[in-house]
């Protein structure tokens, strides 16, 4: 039902733009365009889908395991095992070369497909699909709501898992086992542990968790392909006064961002609201790209989608957009600290979907 609703919405958008055919790309890191079109999230290899002028959808994958999975998991589309995927998709596009064809994301297309020497012309359809990805239908928000609940529950497991003597990757094992048990197929997470020596979260390592460590993570489980995220910081033991002061600042910044997020406001305004708190406390430098990447980002069929919450992003927020607001950055007194909640933009403001208390946890 949701898959069909997405396809109907896509067809309407294509018709309005005069686009007759569309080719999309996905892989295990970013599969949102592919999932929107073909209801399939890629796990191994390349996945590409072509929406033909007659509205039919053909999915091409270059992994034999993925071809079998796509046949089992999808309906209403044609699935092809395409070991030479770029050439096979290009060949398919040649057959509709006399139509207006868009590609999304255009920059992700394999070189062979994007090559100007092909017999078709590709227009950039990224913006067209991005708008559909950003502004969600109620059923999509419901999925995110479920994912946010799962993120909350997952963080409780993470708190239990983080104990002195354990290695970072062992914590991930506990979280992933929990998510699989709950029927959650996918999750993205990075983490950090230590003190002032930690400048960012990273993939899990064999680093041993020690008493007194500050442990950070962002958990991003998916339900029906929709990712919600939570960022929290804990201390193994008692939080120091400096850690508590720092956390209060991050909380103030996050809440300033959430309070600003509403329809008609730009992503830049939300970022400014967060960063102004850091600037007010004389820590403006730590809100720059030297120490942090973004002050939040869109969530949906991809964990790090548009709009990015940055002071130079002028995307105007609309009801139905979902995102995380997280002023995650390095703090000179205590190290890298994180705090973030998933929100949905409503007609009047922002509804917070994650429910975990905004504390610095002491475990």
């Amino acid at each position: 039902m949701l898959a069909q609703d997405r396809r109907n919405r896509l067809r309407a958008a294509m018709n309005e733009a005069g686009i007759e055919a569309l080719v999309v790309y996905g892989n295990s890191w970013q599969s949102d365009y592919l999932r929107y079109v073909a209801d399939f999230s890629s796990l191994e290899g390349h996945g590409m889908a072509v929406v033909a002028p007659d509205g039919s959808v053909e999915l091409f994958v270059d992994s034999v395991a993925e071809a079998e999975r796509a046949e089992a998991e999808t309906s209403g589309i044609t699935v092809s095992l395409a070991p030479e995927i770029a050439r096979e998709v290009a060949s398919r596009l040649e057959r509709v070369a006399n139509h207006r064809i868009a590609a999304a994301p255009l920059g992700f297309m394999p070189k062979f497909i994007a090559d100007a020497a092909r017999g078709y012309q590709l227009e950039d359809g990224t913006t067209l699909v991005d708008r559909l990805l950003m502004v969600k239908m109620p059923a999509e928000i419901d999925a995110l709501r479920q994912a946010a609940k799962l993120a909350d529950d997952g963080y409780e497991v993470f708190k239990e898992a983080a104990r002195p003597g354990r290695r970072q990757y062992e914590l991930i094992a506990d979280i992933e086992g929990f998510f699989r048990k709950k029927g959650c197929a996918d999750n993205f997470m990075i983490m950090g542990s230590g003190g002032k020596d930690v400048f960012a979260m990273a993939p899990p390592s064999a680093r041993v968790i020690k008493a007194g460590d500050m442990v950070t993570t962002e958990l991003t489980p998916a339900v029906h392909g929709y990712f919600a995220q939570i960022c929290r910081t804990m201390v193994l033991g008692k939080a120091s006064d400096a850690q508590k002061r720092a956390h209060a600042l991050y909380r103030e910044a996050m809440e300033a961002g959430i309070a600003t997020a509403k329809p008609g406001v730009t992503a830049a305004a939300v970022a400014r609201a967060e960063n102004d708190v850091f600037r007010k406390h004389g820590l403006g430098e730590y809100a720059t790209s030297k120490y942090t990447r973004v002050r939040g980002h869109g969530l949906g069929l991809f964990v790090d989608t548009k709009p990015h919450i940055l002071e130079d992003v002028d995307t105007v927020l609309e009801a139905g957009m979902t995102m995380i607001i997280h002023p995650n950055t390095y703090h000179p007194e205590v190290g890298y600290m994180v705090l973030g909640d998933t929100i949905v933009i409503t007609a009047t403001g922002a509804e917070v979907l994650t429910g975990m208390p905004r504390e610095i946890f002491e475990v």
Partner: protein
Amino acid sequence: MRRGFIAWSKAELPESVFAARLARLREAMAPHGLDALVVYTNNTRTAAVSWLTAFVPYWAEGLLVVPLVGDPLLTMAFSNRIVGWGKGVSCVARFEGGARPGQAAGKYLVELGARHVGVADLDNLRAAVASDLAEAAPAAALKDATALFDSVRQQPDPAEIALAAKAGAIAQRALALATGSETRLGDAVAAVDNAARLLGAEEIYMAAAPDLDRDHRFLRPEGVVTPGKSFALRATVAYKGTWIRMTRTLGRAPEPTADAAAQFAAAVARLPSLDGFREFPAWSIEGCRLAQPLDVFAAPAMSAPRPIAPGSLVTAQAVIAVDGKRIALAAPVLVGAQEFPSSVLVAPIFA
């Protein structure tokens, strides 16, 4: 998504292993007149760069430049905050972070004076990266070096065979934890996933055929799924850049299972001939030849199988019908060479 344990294990992959691989690659490059070879990597297409540097991307993309003479450069789309992590989990002379790896790699090609540049898997190189590369190194003629790379890559060294055996052992031990009596598929999947990660897997992708009597196809379980009387679990396990698949069928009697295992072993022994597998209702042979960790070599849906090199590492999968009952199996295989027959590297036994 990835969330596994990424590390360069110097005990299992000493620098000498990478030096030898680079030497083999350069030896193959020289007759083609290549000044440098460029290899792409991202979250999905990890295998070529990890084979040469140990580096496995978690989310970002990048390019490795291997000059015929001089230091290799790995340039990743990383901020400076993450470069330290990258350096710590890779074995490469130069590691850089930057917004656009294509531009950085092109700049290095100019610095090297490289004019004849091979690109592994040029067709599939992301167009925007290819464009940056060409723009930054306008004097470099880029040509496809897929066959060259493939010819070097398909010959595993002892280190890679050991890693495949380790990955298989992790999968075997983890799959042994499923009981077959689970009333929710998620319980079985969770036990295997958790165990593999605790055993040090870099990644595990779980798939299941929830009811073999109805459908032998594997999917990624989501939500609450009640398994059938007989179901199969497949663990795709990565360990330090080497990927394998193992499959366990649960809920079948011991006798047909042993019969299926014997048929599987017999088909494996005939590899690289596919004749033994063609009798099965479903099967595939996968291995690593370029950037995808498990590329399809042969399957019923392929009109032209790719050649399977003697001495190569592959994963064989099959669904075998015994007395009308389907049994799914998969295991890593070392393909025979010279007088040695093909055989499974880790037996699909889970007791």
